[in-house]
């Protein structure tokens, strides 16, 4: 019984940790605002500031939800050799890239 409780507490805890990672609560609101800005302005210079695409493909919720989250995170961090997509790991941590991808998956408010 005790062990069971232990396990459920554990799984609860890991579930909590997972949600934290998903929601990116380790990223301060100020940094979140910066990242949102980066998404609109800098990602937007190729993907369109309304994310409808440009030189790069559209990043609308409709399109990105068909793609794997891990693949999206890797693409942000490492870029795509042979295309115009650069690696953003010089400016973004994995947690920040994850937060950005989750924003895309949730749908981003664009200007």
């Amino acid at each position, binding site marked *: 019984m005790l062990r069971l409780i232990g396990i459920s507490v554990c799984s609860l805890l890991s579930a909590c940790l997972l949600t934290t990672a998903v929601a990116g609560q380790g990223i301060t609101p100020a940094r979140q605002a910066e990242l949102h800005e980066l998404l609109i302005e800098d990602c937007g*210079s190729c993907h369109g500031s309304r994310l409808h695409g440009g030189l790069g493909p559209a990043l609308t919720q409709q399109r990105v939800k068909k793609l794997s989250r891990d693949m999206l995170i890797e693409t942000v961090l490492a870029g795509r050799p042979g295309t115009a997509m650069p690696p953003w790991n010089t400016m973004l941590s994995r947690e920040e890239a994850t937060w950005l991808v989750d924003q895309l998956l949730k749908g981003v408010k664009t200007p």
Partner: protein
Amino acid sequence: MKPNTRIPLSFLWRMVLIISTITASAPVVADELRGTGDLGVIIERTSGSVQIIETTHNTSLARVDGLGDLSHASVVFSRDERYAYVFGRDGGLTKIDLLKHRIVKRIMQSGNSIGGAISQNGKLVAVSNYTPGGVKVFDADTLKLVADIPASYADGKLSKVIGLVDAPGNRFVFSLWDAGEIWIADMHQPSRPKITRFKNIGTNPYDGLITPDGRYYIAGLFGEDGMALLDLWHPELGVKHILPDYGKGDKKLPVYKMPHLEGWTVAGTHAFVPAVGHHEVLVIDTQNWKQVARIPVFGQPVFVMARPDARQVWVNFAVPNNHKVQVIDTESLKVIKTLEPGKGVLHMEFEPRGEQVWISVRDKNQVQVYDTETLQLIKTLPAIKPSGIFNTSRAHKLGL
């Protein structure tokens, strides 16, 4: 009559007088004769608006709203410098009356566009589109569609079109990003453009330019080293690959924003262009199209713009280096000044004779005006997330 009823009446009259005086002295829209040679347009991209400015006293005259998604917007002008044609990212094409400060006509001509040009005779406005990939040509007066040129290649796929410019002989020249081709559209019969295709010009041309004399069209290549050169005096000679050895053996740095080739800079026999994936400005000898120097700069150059007298070249940079601007002396080929206007320097536009330059600073919501002789900031104007700045003097320049 009670005295207290008389007071409000006379008060009312005074108000009417005051109001009519204000109206008479308020900035007049086209009631007063004025030229348009000192006017310009600033793109405010997130709010979908533009400001109309004048460069004689460096003031803003008006804001025009309702232009849609203006990320990566650009502008060309009618030859009488009265109308501005604004190309928006969402495929919108808007014609603005610079004297009346209003939209004359606005159409949605595609799903996703990247730029445009006005023909040599001023009668046609062409737009280059990403989706559906191709060029559409409109009547400059009415914005009615005159010709549709789908950029089809390999099995009918459509390519994104970039680097659209006007050329002498009432032609438009443009490049196909996906196909690696340059096309010339001869517009002598506007509804039936005559297309000349140049294939295998290189991988992923990202922008194109035409030299100020209208002779050479050059496309920058993102997917490989070098540039593609087309002599419009002799298109029968085909496209030549220039600067093939540039960057060979060097590791390329990531490119966080595509460089632009607008504002092609020729000083004497030297041309200045942004390197791709290197924090350098390249100097090319236009006699033989060989590289003569590489000037190390602060970041990945985006715009490399010459002051009209070509004594200076001003350079801005891609993120994360977009808070600075560098000035190169074209004689010594050295950076003579590094300015720090602030984060998000997106564009620079010289006044027609170059004594001042306007710089948009997105994150400060500012446009800054610098004296190009003293290199000092002389004026700051508020603007909502400004990007491109375009002066009407472009109306009389080939390729702009």
